[in-house]
């Protein structure tokens, strides 16, 4: 069963534990600057929004890559960057409509979310459940449940 990262921005507090977990897993340093998941703060609205790769089925980045350095991991569904194949041409960063593939000046290749091989650190690190890793076919399940619950009678004695 394929799983997906599910993001619920209304639960995010902007603590950046996900960015630290992501960068630590990838580089061994706590370094939000190279995290593959990003938290955006909308100060005036009082909102925090986590954002990362959604692992498109027909991934623009993968199709755009001229050297086939972005490949599908059949087990996780992740589109993974083969660092030793990537030539740093950055065409994938242009192709991605969401901006979630980025170039790293230090490594001279691109980096993106790879779902940590099927056990994403960001989801484990999130203290509020704003990032979870759930059945890819049912990412809407909790929202459906919440809306369904609105139809329950206020006072259960009325049932």
């Amino acid at each position: 069963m394929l799983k997906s990262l599910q993001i619920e921005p209304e639960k995010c507090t902007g603590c950046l534990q996900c960015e630290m977990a992501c960068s630590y897993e990838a580089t061994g340093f706590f370094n939000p600057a190279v995290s593959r998941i990003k938290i955006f703060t909308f100060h005036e609205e009082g909102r925090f929004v986590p954002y990362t790769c959604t692992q498109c089925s027909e991934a623009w980045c993968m199709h755009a890559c001229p050297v086939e350095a972005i490949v599908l991991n059949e087990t996780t569904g992740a589109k993974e960057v083969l660092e030793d194949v990537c030539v740093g041409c950055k065409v994938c960063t242009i192709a991605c409509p969401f901006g979630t593939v980025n170039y790293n000046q230090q490594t001279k290749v691109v980096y993106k979310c790879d779902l940590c091989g099927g056990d994403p650190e960001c989801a484990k690190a999130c203290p509020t459940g704003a990032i979870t890793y759930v059945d890819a076919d049912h990412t809407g399940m909790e929202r459906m449940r919440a809306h369904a619950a609105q139809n329950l009678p206020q006072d259960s004695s009325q049932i």
Partner: protein
Amino acid sequence: MAWTRNVMRVNLTKGTITNEPLNMDWAMDYLGQRGLASKYLVEEIDPKCDALGSDNKLIMTTGPLTGTCASTGGRYSVVTKSPLTGAIACSNSGGFIGNEIKNAGWDMIIFEGISPSPVYLYVENDKAELLPADDLWGESAWETDELIHKKHQDPLIRIACVGRSAEAGCLYAGIINDLHRAAGRSGVGTVMASKNLKAVAVRGTKGVGNVKDPAAFLKATEQGKKVLAENAVTGQGLPTYGTQVLMNVINEIGAMPTRNMREVQFEGASKISGEAMHEPRPTDGRPNLTTNAACFGCTIACGRISTIDQGHFSIQNKPEYWGASGGAEYEAAWALGSDCGVDDLDAITYANFLCNEDGFDPISFGSTVAAAMELFEIGAITTKETGGMELKFGNPKALAWAAEVTAKGEGFGKDLGLGSKRLCEKYGHPDLSMTVKGQEFPAYDPRGIQGMGLTYATSNRGACHLRSYTVASEVLGIPEKTDPLVTDGKPELVKAFQDATAAVDSTGLCVFTTFAWTLEDIAPQVNAACEGDWTPEKMTEVGERIWNMEREFNLAAGLTAKDDTLPKRLLKEAAKTGPATGKVNGLDEMLPKYYQIRGWTPDGVPTAETRQRLGL
């Protein structure tokens, strides 16, 4: 080694920036942040120097756990000599600047001298330069933040800066970072402005790593997060209500300082409480609270983000205040609210916005306004001084006006910027100033919580709740319940809290974790990250060493045991309502015992034996 071992020294007089290695011998004795930067300050400045002169220094410092995944590991502190108290100052802030300094590769930035013209420091990893700030001078902290981001075309820069209050010489100006977090107390922003230093802008991309034992560190920090999540205060109370969870609790036990501490309970407390912030307003149907928010790495997320009703008198026709921003924490809600007798939550939020926008401490400000209101009510201050404003207790318009004039240092705002002590002296009633060593009280009346009287009287930075928060024990039963109305056992309790807090303030972690954590939870995280053998016992010893070092600085600066006291009101005027009815603070019963268990002489001076034991 969670230290980066790099110290940046910025000489503002000469315009030079140099690097030097962190003194690791001192790090082993003082750990980091509050302790280590205080050691640097004590070694480098004359305690008698003019706090606003060129001989004072200002140190921005991280802790060894700043920038790591330890929960709340994003703290930084500003250490300097305070212009408000003449004592050593250490103001701690969250937000994101601490992590950014650490990520850029620095444990500490030491500022010395005075720049001939306004400048700001721009740091990009190893690269650091002083840039002209003539165009930023005269701008608020919020405008400064926006202008620097625009100038560098980099939204990821983190900025700490001063607002107009600091430039105008307000003695309790803070340093604002990330728009609404602050190194707020003791006038550290006033010192920064006196150096013609407008801002510190940092971009760090190096990462924080090289922890001593990565596997042990991940395990210890995960365990720590679990403890925080499962604790009722840090797991539920603080995320839901923020520190404002305390408003109704403290009011009920009769320890809510009200109307310049004339009373100990506020009839309007429930209207300005954490619970009230969740209630939809009758006017626009929206609650004051928009969301809770976390500082860097914090899994508690007690921060309040608030929105004011657009129809409220304070922001009508001022769209710049219509968006969400940092809302009232308990201390601000108390100082701007019950201490001024104001029960208008949106007026309090507006005043709090202005405290953030122009960088002045809402505790000292609110308490100073409260003193001014009492002076107004007895006729010592009149509408002549206030330009017609009825500066009466309970008047939300007077509060909003006071914040506006203090923010810019205009008219009567200059007087309010003096702080409560100097204001009350100026208008002939020094007894009406609710201060210790010149610093205004926070939100716990020591008639209703006896240990807090000793806490305030002996605090090394003047009246302060964050030096030994015995409220935890006396009210909340953490780590064990003591009776708030008795003095027995309080000297021991205060000493234990003072030492432990000094250690926590030296780690890079937030003191609010100690609602759930003891040093037994913290030491394993420090020990897994840092060289050395960091046991709870060693951390307690480091805390005691820091406390005594700060004390010795203050004694050398000219403070004496006579300054370890409370305003007459709290020692002579009994509480009139609530559980503490008939009580004054029993400081006299606690202070001699406190000196004794500290290993100090009856005059409050550390003995030779104590100094030797602590390696001072």
